[in-house]
């Protein structure tokens, strides 16, 4: 029988840096013997002094650990996928299931098991379980971000399903935080979802945000956008922002002290001139692109990878399929994060005319 053997990152130097090698045998035991012959250094890892498979090496056939099958006598069929996964020493172990589930990202040298641990320990708040929040939540959950808070006060409408991929047809009429929680549990049971079935307001924003490491803005209105911006700055949390309109999307990251949404856009458009979301069409793939970019920025911040979008506004034009960027800066005159700030706590955004969103003492 010819099978494919997945080699995890820690063993790859023993197989000429190959993540997959071909192997042969009627059973797992025969396969292991054959691998020992072809890759003696790997073979040393796959047997102890008694010539047996060491307890910390887990062997999987088609994602099933062999002890739940027939052990080393487990028969192999042509085309089976076999994985040999070492457990990592230490109290903060990833389980064998986690090593396998996240193997495609653990094998990235800049991620590794340590990075995976960071992801599992991270707490990310997603404000809005709609067109942007859905793809962001799905990818963060799949990557194993351990705690995801979801803020949304709405119930699912049939017209949401065209873009809001956290929810499914039978969920129409249900609170979105409930269907979001169920969907995420199906993607990845490692993730603890904290549903916040509220509208974010100045009364609850600080308390909710305080529980998380960073915040993904996936909101459909400017009032919540400015509120979130202010709350994140005041709480000292990175704020990952995204927005879409028709065929165009924007994404950026605000790290406290390095500029905020008010530095970028000092005031929102007057409220009476902003049509309601239901009046503006869009194809669901647009918030899909922007929400996934927001998710990637979160992963980069957690893992300390690359250059975040902090200091840059990314602009995506779906019609020309172009990404451009412009610089963003901290504005010394900003009422929130400038040199002489006038905003020291979050104010009453709802009751104010939109112009007063620009400042509150």
């Amino acid at each position, binding site marked *: 029988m010819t099978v494919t053997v997945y080699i995890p990152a820690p063993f790859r130097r023993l197989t000429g840096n190959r993540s997959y090698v071909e192997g042969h045998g009627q059973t797992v035991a025969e396969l292991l013997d054959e691998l020992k012959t072809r890759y003696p250094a790997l073979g040393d890892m796959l047997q102890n002094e008694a010539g047996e498979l060491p307890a910390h090496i887990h062997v999987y056939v088609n994602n099933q650990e062999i002890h739940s099958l027939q052990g080393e006598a487990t028969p192999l069929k042509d085309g089976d996928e076999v994985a040999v996964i070492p457990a990592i020493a230490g109290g903060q172990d990833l389980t064998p299931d986690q090593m396998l589930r996240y193997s495609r990202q653990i094998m990235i040298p800049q991620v590794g098991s340590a990075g995976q641990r960071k992801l599992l320990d991270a707490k990310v708040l997603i404000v809005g379980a709609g067109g942007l929040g859905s793809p962001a939540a799905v990818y963060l959950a799949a990557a194993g971000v351990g705690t995801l808070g979801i803020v949304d006060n709405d119930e699912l409408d049939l017209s*949401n399903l065209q873009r809001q991929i956290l929810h499914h047809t039978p969920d129409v009429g249900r609170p979105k935080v409930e269907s979001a929680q169920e969907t995420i549990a199906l993607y990845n049971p490692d993730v603890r979802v904290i549903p916040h079935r509220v509208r974010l307001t100045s009364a609850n924003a600080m308390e909710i945000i305080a529980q998380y490491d960073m915040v993904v803005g996936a909101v*459909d209105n400017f009032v919540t956008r400015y509120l979130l911006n202010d709350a994140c700055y005041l709480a000292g949390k990175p704020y990952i922002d995204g927005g879409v309109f028709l065929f*165009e*999307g924007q994404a950026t990251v605000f790290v406290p002290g390095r500029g905020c949404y008010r530095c970028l856009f000092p005031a929102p458009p007057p409220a009476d001139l902003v049509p*309601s979301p239901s009046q503006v069409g869009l194809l669901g793939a647009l*918030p899909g692109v922007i929400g996934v970019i927001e998710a990637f920025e979160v992963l980069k911040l957690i893992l300390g990878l690359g250059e975040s979008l902090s200091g840059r506004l990314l602009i995506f034009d779906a019609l020309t399929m172009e990404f*451009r960027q412009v610089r963003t800066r901290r504005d010394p005159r900003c009422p929130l994060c400038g040199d002489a700030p006038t905003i020291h706590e979050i104010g009453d955004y709802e009751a104010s005319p939109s112009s007063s969103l620009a400042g509150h003492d």
Partner: protein
Amino acid sequence: MSVIVRIPTALRKITADQDRIPADGGDLSECIASLDASYPGLKERLCDESGEIRRFVNIYVNGEDVRFLQGLATPLKNGAEVSIVPAVAGGGGQATELEA
């Protein structure tokens, strides 16, 4: 000076669906006047009654926000790229008043 102006989706109804338009002007205000002559109505989308750039619209010259340069008096060099970028909100899609 001849420059290229990048038009956001929200303004393309005014510009006959063009996403980039050549324009002239020694500084940004001249450039906007030249645009408005070819595409009437564009200026009032970008500037308020007092002639200042609206606070929810950003204009960038070669990627730099003109509010951090010289505003409407920002000089333009030949070949400069001028980008108009409105604030957009919308997890599901929400327009600004910029929509034509």
